[in-house]
């Protein structure tokens, strides 16, 4: 299968009080089209940091990230942003919505920034709102939504451009188990039907098992990397 993401000797360190602390300590990873990968690991082991680097939001201290065989280090800011817009949908641990825009405007943001007209996508918008169950809250501002609802807006925003890859940092961390299951089911469906590659960070074993592969991280290293033995019934 087509390789979508690959990293080579990926390292990241932070300056902390004059001391350099290495957080990602050389990660080599390959992810193929259509995979649904769950990254797990104790708090602070570097999961979010890894995800940011994969999405081109942060740059590694050394090593490379390839998206569709293209070296991210060599991309200009503009190319990277285009990549993020078109190929990658990002869902953040802290929802990160634009506060002064409505739900609909937030979701359509990547479209409009890609030079498309919002009004041509009303149908897609409604579809996606339907999917995340926020059709009635279309014109609310983020402030007027609960944490879980905001997370769902963020997910809708990640999906609107039909990206090839979704990077989700604890997408259901703030949701009740029912909504969480719904979102996971949604992920699974789009993963299957649209062949969208999904990479999620999660702390919950049952959420991880929606995926096809589980990577355990420990202190900046990949501790284990296994395929999921599918036992769950759809």
């Amino acid at each position, binding site marked *: 299968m087509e390789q979508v993401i690959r990293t080579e000797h990926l390292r990241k360190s932070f300056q902390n009080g004059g001391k350099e602390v290495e957080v990602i300590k050389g990660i080599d990873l390959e992810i193929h089209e259509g995979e649904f990968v769950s990254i797990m690991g104790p708090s602070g082991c570097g999961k979010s940091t890894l995800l940011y680097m994969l999405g081109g939001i942060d740059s590694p201290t050394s090593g490379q990230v390839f998206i569709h065989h293209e070296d991210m280090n060599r991309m200009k800011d503009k190319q990277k*942003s285009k990549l*993020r*817009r078109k190929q990658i949908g990002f869902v953040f641990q*802290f929802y*990160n919505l634009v506060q*002064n825009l409505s739900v609909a405007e937030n979701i359509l943001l990547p479209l409009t*920034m890609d030079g498309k007209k*919002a*009004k041509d996508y009303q149908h897609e918008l409604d579809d996606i709102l339907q999917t995340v169950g926020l059709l009635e809250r279309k014109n609310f501002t983020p402030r007027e939504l609960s944490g879980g609802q905001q997370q769902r807006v963020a997910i809708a925003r990640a999906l609107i451009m039909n990206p090839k890859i979704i990077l989700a940092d604890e997408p259901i961390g703030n949701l009740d188990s029912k909504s969480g299951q719904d979102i996971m089911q949604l992920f699974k469906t789009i993963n299957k039907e649209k062949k969208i590659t999904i990479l999620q960070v999660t702390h919950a074993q049952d959420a991880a098992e929606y995926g096809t592969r589980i990577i355990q991280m420990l202190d900046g290293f990949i501790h284990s990397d296994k395929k999921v033995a599918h036992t769950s019934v759809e």
Partner: protein
Amino acid sequence: MKSVIKHIVINLFEKKFRTFIVLLTVCLSTLVVFIGLSLNGIIKDTYASMLKGAYGDTNIIMSKSSDNPLYEKHDIVLPDIPIETRNDMLFTQGKTTIKDKKIDVILVGLDAIDAEASGLLNKTQQMDGFKLQQNRAMISNNTAAKYDLQLGDPISIDTGEEKWKFIVGAISKTQGVFFSEVDAISLAVSQEQVNNILDTTDKVNTSYLTVPENKLSEAIQFLKTNNADFHIQNQSTAANAHDGDTFETTMILAILTIVLISSYIIFSLAKLIVVERMPVVGTFRSIGASKKLIHFILTLEFLFYGLIGSIIGFTAGMLLLPYVADLFNAYKDLGVETEVSYSFTYICIAFLFGALFPAVISHFQISRLNKRPLKEIILNTQQTSQKHSIIPYILGLILLITAFGLYGINQKDDLLLGILSILCLFISIVLWMPGFLNLVSKGLNRLFQSIGSGEFLLGVKNLGNNKIASNNSNMIIVVFILLMLVGMIADGIDQYLHKSLVKDYDIAITDIQDVKPYENVDELDNVSDAYAQHVNIAETVIGNQSESFGVIGVDDLEAFDSFYSGITLQQDAKEQLNKTDNGIILDEYQLERFNLQIGDEIVLQPLDQNLEPMDGKDTKVTAAIVGSMESLGFSQNRATALVNLNYFHDHFMETMSQINLKAIPDADLEQLKQDIRYHYPDSDMSVHTFDDILETQKSTIDSLILGMTIIVLLGLLIGILGISNNLLVSFIQRKKEYAVLYSVCMSRGQLVKVLLVETCLTFISVVVIGFAGSMAMNVIMVRLLYAIGLRIDFQFNSSLFFILTAVVFILLLLSILSIIRKIYRMNIIENLRFE
């Protein structure tokens, strides 16, 4: 509690720039308030000290108001009140030539001992055994320095028929009788010698008296009744009659503006700081700190800003005051020292303003913050979206209507109503601004929905609904309009002087009690035309407004009309005045202002030299209005009134009479001035050219304009500080927003594009709203300016508008450049995580 304080102190040091700006704003406002308040008093004191320099302790000046101005000392009937000092003097004129230079000389015959005792002389050098006797003279150290004269030098004086030789026997400080040596020098000599020159014995023509201040009015009353043919002037009213009124009002208006600007800036800063403190407040509240404690600690922080800022501010104010006051000393050329005094009250007011104002303002902000649900405070949900409530708009509309309503009602140009209506307009603009920006944003959004790029549309949206973006525009517009306000007043004052007055004469003879002795002045060489103007000041009160008219008694209206082109008589006013004995012609502005019609009657109270009712009692005159005129070019306060000369003589007295002369083309006016003085050697008249008069007016007004300019500049400085702070802080507040946008879908270039769109729109809105607001101000301000006596048609100050526009442009440009730099350097990840 300790930890909260520690946090705040750390914050103060970390946000050095912010702390600096807050302190500077507080410091500048304190400074301006202090200097502004002190300046009025200082200018008055300086004027008083100028008068004191000229007249010593004298508080009554007497001279004779008839054809023969000479009298003997005992002609004056004195009241039974102790006279502290008395100086009887005899003035005459002559000429001398020093080093081939022809110089006018005023000879003052006086008693040196008496004069020195009352401060009219002050010897600094003298020859051995000097006495002011035959052929001895005293000069000022100014003259000594200017013409290089020493003790023992001879001066020869030409009085027309004869030549007199004097020896310089003493040199005095330049005060008292030497005070006004501008284009002539004064020579103090013995009285007998001046009597010799004039071929008289024991005569004098001016007497200076000093009586105890509490007996002054009694003394004047007595002198008036018992010395009918004398002209009696109250020197202490002269000190108060200084044209400080307009000055004071304008100054106070300007100070108010600065206070408004600083208040607004401090207000916005307080808001920002309070918002910024939210996370800490949240954390502390979540672990159990009470609302009260938080409130107390935050207020403490602002108190700290206030205290430090105002201490620096008023210390700087105290240090600067002498220099600033010196700038406003219009009499420096005359050697008057600036009288700097520090008023405890003003220090207190300035200090209290600076120290407490920030705390009070922040108090409201903190209360608002504390009202928010605890959950929001703790979670610190970033509140960048703008809430649009309807109440401010309704309030704004009501205020707008009130502003124009007051404008309509305020027919009589009441000052208070004028200020009130401007204030209403101003607040209504401030209240409407967010709505206006929202409207612009919505409109543009709709307009460009299908053609605008995503970046453009996002920028447009932010202008309307992003609190921080619209806050910036708000602040700029507020400062902009306030400065336009001050600027337009300053411009009005400037126009008042430079553009409205028509030069209808070349030389004026003033300070005369009676025009008769001078009526033959047109026989002098080089004089082409002369007009003797009989003038009295009369007061009228209509409604609750009063106005002082300069009433002119006119003999031949034709001659008057052709002499003065600054006055245009309307329709048949001339014929009507000729027909009606008690007729009066007023400026059309006054008719409109007091809602008077032709045929109405007006009651006038003539005032004497001391601006008290004539003869000390109610001597009101009722005149019938027979016509109107346009007199702006003649006198800028448009308060001239014309009556028939006979009527004038019957009911008014000549207090401000003057003779205006036109010279033949290319005549040497300085020479003509000397000729006139020479022609009337024993008169105490003043002779000035039109340009001299304009110059003295100009110096007062120029210092006023200077004051206003300084205030505009200070306001601009405070404004720029506040705005640039706001712009930079807004970046800090929006970092997270930018980070989100970046991480989701935008390149840094696109972020910059959005920012550019916002900034351009801000600039355009500022220009548009600033223009509209200033136009409205321009209409409403007419009442205010008319109320303070500037009755001119004044226009929108377009040059100031362009300057301010340019300043805003540069400011935005600079701030945007620094923000762009920051966007490119911003660490996205750090901002994506928590705050």
